């Protein structure tokens, strides 16, 4: 499989009145074509900011470190995403090669413009197709994502659709430009479970049909288990563990991943008590030194956890854990 996008040493800080706030620190990963990656973490872990960086879409006060690089590979060329400045160049990435769908579909559609008009507008922005053709494609896409009566729906406004329908329309819009990567930021969090199951099924189908890659941002490990091939777990702006979904969920290695799984209420085990991770997620203004998780970790080894940032230890081809427990490479 060929690599689609490569992120290297991504470090991103936001300039604020209270000083520089580190949102993402030294994040590296790569994604192949047709691969589905889960990006998991709690609020403030930097997963959305990381994903937005892939489109150079972060707020104006974002400062990338000089070592940060994001490379988008295509058959013809390699694009250095972070160096893009001109709107015309950015357009090739934003909505062209990469599309994004968000958690709250009501907030993502303009309320006073019909769904169809919004879909047509972006199709015309990214190609020189006629309005008539763009409309046909829009209707086709709405039909593909399972919206009944698409030729009528295309002229409706977002408020006329139910939550599940809106998210389907959002997916249709995101995929109509045939992106190579879809970033889905908590796409089913606002939906009911039965609707969530339908939308997840749809997305799994679409990956195959369009041979596209997906980055699934979520806090729900169940959603990741059902959709992704591999998963990266983030905490306070760092990736602390990554590997295949099966490995990470069935045998987590990092104390944070272990803790998160133990805190999760599981239907297949109603007897064991829920074990919360002690303490609270530190404020980004008070980032712990050393390992970012050392303030809440139950397996702290002593001074080294609060002094040194742990480097990655690899287990096999795709599994990496950043924890001092596994420094010797064998695993504790």
């Amino acid at each position, binding site marked *: 499989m060929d690599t689609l996008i490569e992120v290297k040493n991504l470090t991103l800080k936001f300039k604020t009145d209270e000083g520089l706030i580190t949102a993402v620190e030294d994040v590296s990963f790569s994604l192949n074509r047709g691969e589905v990656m889960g990006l998991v973490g709690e609020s403030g872990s930097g997963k959305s900011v990381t994903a937005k960086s892939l489109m150079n879409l972060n707020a104006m006060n974002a400062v990338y470190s000089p070592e940060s690089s994001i490379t988008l590979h295509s058959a013809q060329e390699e694009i250095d995403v972070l160096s893009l400045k001109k709107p015309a160049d950015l357009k090739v990435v934003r909505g062209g090669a990469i599309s994004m769908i968000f958690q709250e579909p009501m907030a993502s559609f303009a309320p006073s413009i019909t769904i169809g008009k919004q879909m047509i507008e972006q199709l015309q922005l990214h190609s020189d197709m006629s309005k008539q053709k763009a409309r046909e494609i829009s209707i086709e896409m709405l039909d593909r994502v399972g919206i009944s009566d698409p030729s009528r729906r295309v002229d409706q406004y977002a408020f006329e659709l139910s939550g599940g329908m809106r998210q389907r329309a959002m997916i249709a819009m995101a995929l109509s430009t045939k992106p190579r990567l879809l970033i889905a930021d908590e796409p089913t969090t606002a939906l009911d479970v039965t609707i969530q199951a339908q939308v997840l099924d749809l997305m799994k189908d679409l990956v195959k049909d369009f041979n596209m890659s997906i980055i699934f941002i979520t806090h729900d490990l169940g959603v990741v288990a059902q959709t992704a091939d591999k998963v990266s777990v983030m905490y306070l702006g760092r990736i602390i563990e990554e590997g295949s979904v099966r490995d990470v969920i069935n045998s987590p290695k990092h104390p944070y991943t272990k803790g998160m799984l133990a805190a*999760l209420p599981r239907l297949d085990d109603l007897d064991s008590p829920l074990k919360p991770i002690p303490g609270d997620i530190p404020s980004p203004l008070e980032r712990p030194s050393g390992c970012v998780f050392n303030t809440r970790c139950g397996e702290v080894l002593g001074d080294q956890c609060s002094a040194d940032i742990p480097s990655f230890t690899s287990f096999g081809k795709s599994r990496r854990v950043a924890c001092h427990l596994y420094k010797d490479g064998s695993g504790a």
Partner: protein
Amino acid sequence: MADLVKVENLSVSYKIGGGLFSQNYLKAVNNVSLTIKRGSFFGLVGESGSGKTTLGRALLNAVPISSGSAHYDDGDVSYELSKLDKTQLADYRKRAQLIFQDPYAALSPRMTVRDIIAEPIEVMKLASDREEIDSRVRTIASRCRLNLEHLRRFPHAFSGGQRQRISIARALVSDPRLVIADEAVAALDVSIQADVLNLLKSLQKDMGLTFMFISHDLSVVAHICDHVAVMYLGRLVESAPTRELFKAPKHPYTKALFSAIPSLNPDDQGTAQRLEGEIPSPTNQPSGCKFHTRCPHAIDICKKEEPSLQQTDPQHEVACHRWKELFNT
């Protein structure tokens, strides 16, 4: 155990639109009967639009009951909720309290934590002097694992989990008997959620509280509740002790709801039974069984007749025409 709340054929309607001579009503809760035992953790689940929040509000007397009755009896007092006079209502407010979903929206940013927790005492005139108020605030705060230092600060200084503990302290400061927790952990991260759930459970035991826990998250409900009721489009479709409900659901909707939860096991795919379509609009409800439009087992009678709630086991009730043939194994 005696019943704390006994609801019989309760309906709540909201007036929507209509003109001078016509009035349209939306029945958010439709003919619901249930009992909540004293000291229990009662779960209420269902998708958005199923009426679970409205039912919770009706039990708090925060929305008017259109028909039916809700009886409250905690041993000291006994009230019929639709017929409370002013003094009874004031007393009932102390006995029934609410915890909200969003701890960021529920706390005034301009009040200190001490003032937030003390406000119910002042409004309900539960204490006469400042010293007594302070001692009550301190007692409940420490029960909710907030320290004295926290009381002087403002909500913005706290994380989501801490804020929810402040909300809980405020709800419990009047020493209520019934607490309605409406999606109380839905906005929290998993590592924090477990902490708040454990706190609720231990407070329930220590203070002898009865909880109605409204949630869309079935895994959470399965872990914390003793008894669970499932709602669909304003109706109660199934109600049973938690273990029994999760082990052997007898309503096709309950079963579908469970199978829609994404499993943590990556190999456990495809076995799930998918529900087609979406919950119908409450202003345009289907005839017969409200679930027949999405039910994989619907037959003719389901479209014509609305099933009544039948007892299948001592504490298990289900409203389905076909439960016997489908799930009576």
